[in-house]
C-alpha cells in the first residue's frame, strides 16, 4: 500500500534538459527514439545526400569534386568536418535500416514479447554502432 500511496512525480511542461535526462530508457526505448532521430536527421541532410549522388555519378570532373570534399574540403567546409557529417549519415542509415528490419520482423512473425524486444534491441544497437565504427575507421583512413 505504501508504494501506491507514495506520490509519483507528475510532469506537465517537460524541460528537455532537466527532465529528459532523468528518464531511464530500456534498450527498446533507445532503439525507438534513435529510429526517430536518425530518420529526422536524414530528412534534414537529404539535399546533401542528393548532392553526393549528383557529384559522384555525373562526370569524372564532378567525381573529383566529390572526392576532394573528403580530403581538402569543400569551400569553407574542411574535409574532416565533411567526414564527420557523412559519418553521422552512415550511422543514421545503419540504425534506421537495422531497427526497421527489426520492426518488419516483429510485424511479420508477431514476435512481440518483453524478452525478444530487449534482446533484438541490443542486437540492433550493437550491430549499428559496430558497423558505424568499422565504416568510420575506413572513412577516416585508419585501414
Amino acid at each position, binding site marked *: 500500500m505504501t508504494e501506491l500511496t507514495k506520490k509519483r512525480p507528475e510532469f506537465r511542461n517537460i524541460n528537455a534538459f532537466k527532465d529528459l535526462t532523468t528518464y531511464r530508457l530500456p534498450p527498446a526505448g533507445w532503439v525507438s527514439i534513435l529510429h526517430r532521430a536518425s*530518420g529526422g536527421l536524414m*530528412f534534414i541532410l*537529404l539535399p546533401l545526400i542528393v548532392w553526393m549522388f549528383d557529384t*559522384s*555519378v555525373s562526370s569524372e570532373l564532378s*567525381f573529383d569534386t566529390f572526392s576532394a570534399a573528403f580530403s581538402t574540403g569543400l569551400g569553407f567546409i574542411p574535409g574532416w568536418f565533411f567526414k564527420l557529417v557523412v559519418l553521422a549519415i552512415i550511422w543514421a542509415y545503419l540504425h534506421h*535500416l537495422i531497427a526497421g*528490419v527489426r520492426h*518488419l520482423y516483429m510485424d511479420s512473425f508477431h514476435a512481440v514479447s518483453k524478452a525478444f524486444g530487449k534482446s533484438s534491441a541490443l542486437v540492433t544497437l550493437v550491430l549499428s554502432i559496430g558497423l558505424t565504427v568499422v565504416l568510420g575507421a575506413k572513412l577516416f583512413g585508419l585501414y
Partner: protein
Amino acid sequence: MSVNYGSKRVVTGAHYGLRDWLAQRITAALMAVFTLIVVLQVLFTSGPIGYESWAGIFAAQWMKALTFAVFLALTYHVWVGMRDIWMDYVKPAGIRLALHVFTIVWLLSCLGWAVQVLWRL
C-alpha cells in the same frame, strides 16, 4: 484522448487507416532490398571503385528504373515518417500545416533533383 474522428477530424492528421502504415513498411522493404543490391554490386566490383565503376552501377537501364522507383518510395516513406513526428510534437494546426507544406516542398525538390541526375546518366 479527445475525439478526432467523424466531424472532428483534424485537417493535418493522418489518413485514419491502414494505408500509410502499410505503405511505410512496403517502401522500407523495397529500400532495404535496393541497399542490398547496391552493396553487392560494389562488393563484386573488381579493383578499387572509381568514377567509371560507380556510375556504371546506376547507368544500367534496369538499375535506373529500379532507382527511380526507390526514389519515389523514399519520398513517400519520409513523408509518412516526418508527418508522424510533426503530429507528435507540434499541436497547433497552423504551425503543423506550415511544417507539412515545408516537408512536401523539401522532399519534392530533392526528388526532382535526384531524378534529374538519374535521367542524364
